[in-house]
């Protein structure tokens, strides 16, 4: 049974072993990443974005055996997503096919997607209490009072707790390795 803090390589290994829950976990871990590349990196039209998203994960499922380094699942998925986006865009536009290449990507947007993924990975390494409080405040826009009430914490302590958790997140981010980015380059 995979825990919430399972590493990418543990999830990939479980997928290889045929664990369907692990595949679901993998999709959940990378769905925003893949969608970010599709929508923001390549600006695939909304009516095509869902199809491209499905196609990426179908290809990934079929080709998982080709992945040589399980820790590199993120960049590997990014590569499949980039190629799938370009293929889809080539079928839609009237302009010459040759004009659509890697330059089509919005590099700044891809960097942002990559940064968000780094933050997400660092967040998963924090204590569960920190993950919860940061997600409630920054992702779900919950007011301090609601967080305090639902977590049974003193009302005047939430801002300070968030500050402490942010400090831990900063340490995690500064300590991370330099991965291969969604744009395909080592940063």
């Amino acid at each position: 049974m995979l825990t919430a803090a399972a590493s990418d390589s543990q999830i990939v290994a479980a997928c290889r072993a045929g664990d369907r829950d692990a595949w679901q976990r993998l999709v959940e871990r990378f769905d925003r990443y893949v969608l970010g590349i599709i929508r923001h990196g390549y600006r695939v039209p909304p009516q095509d974005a869902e199809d491209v998203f499905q196609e990426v994960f179908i290809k990934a499922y079929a080709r998982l055996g080709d992945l040589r380094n399980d820790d590199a699942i993120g960049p590997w998925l990014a590569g499949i997503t980039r190629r799938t986006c370009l293929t889809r865009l080539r079928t839609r536009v009237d302009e010459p096919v040759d004009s659509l290449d890697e330059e089509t990507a919005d590099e700044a947007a891809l960097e942002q997607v990559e940064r968000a993924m780094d933050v997400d990975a660092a967040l998963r390494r924090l204590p569960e209490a920190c993950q919860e409080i940061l997600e409630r405040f920054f992702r779900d826009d919950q007011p301090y009072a609601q967080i305090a009430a639902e977590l049974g914490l003193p009302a005047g302590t939430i801002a300070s707790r968030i500050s402490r958790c942010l400090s831990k997140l900063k340490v995690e981010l500064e300590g991370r390795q330099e991965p291969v980015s969604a744009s395909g380059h080592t940063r």
Partner: protein
Amino acid sequence: MHLEELTERMSAPEPTPASGTAATVVLELALALVVKVVARSGNDGPMGALTSQVRAVHRRLEGEGDRVEATYTAALDALAAGDRLAIGQGVGEALDAVLRLAGTAADVAELARAVADRCDPVARPDAAAAAALAAAAAAVAAHLAGLNLLAAADERAGKARALADAAAASAAAALAT
């Protein structure tokens, strides 16, 4: 919109902009004061960790005034048309908008209190003032939420009151620093 233009529109007999917009403007001013105090006190150390929260609340506040005004106008239109389904939907959306405003106001008040605890003492009166302004905005939002409720037992009434109470407690603490 310039302040002069806003006050002119606010004074006009049309139903909007009205108290929801006024509360939002007051809240924006309160948050601006918090930003000023943080800037005057330096962005490092404990203050730096609060800066991310200030930014998050600022992002949340963007568009809230328009949302409050638009949903209130839609609810009024539905009431005028006598469409029961539209009334239910319109009033519900207006209520959600002011509840959200109450939550943001309570957060600005609490952020102002936290900033007042840590800031340069010279800037502390501005932080306390920000907390008081935000508490006023929360009280207005909670009052509007109470008026919008179709059923008195709606749990959202309790939520709105709790948010206004939390904001008032933050303001009292900030003013006591």
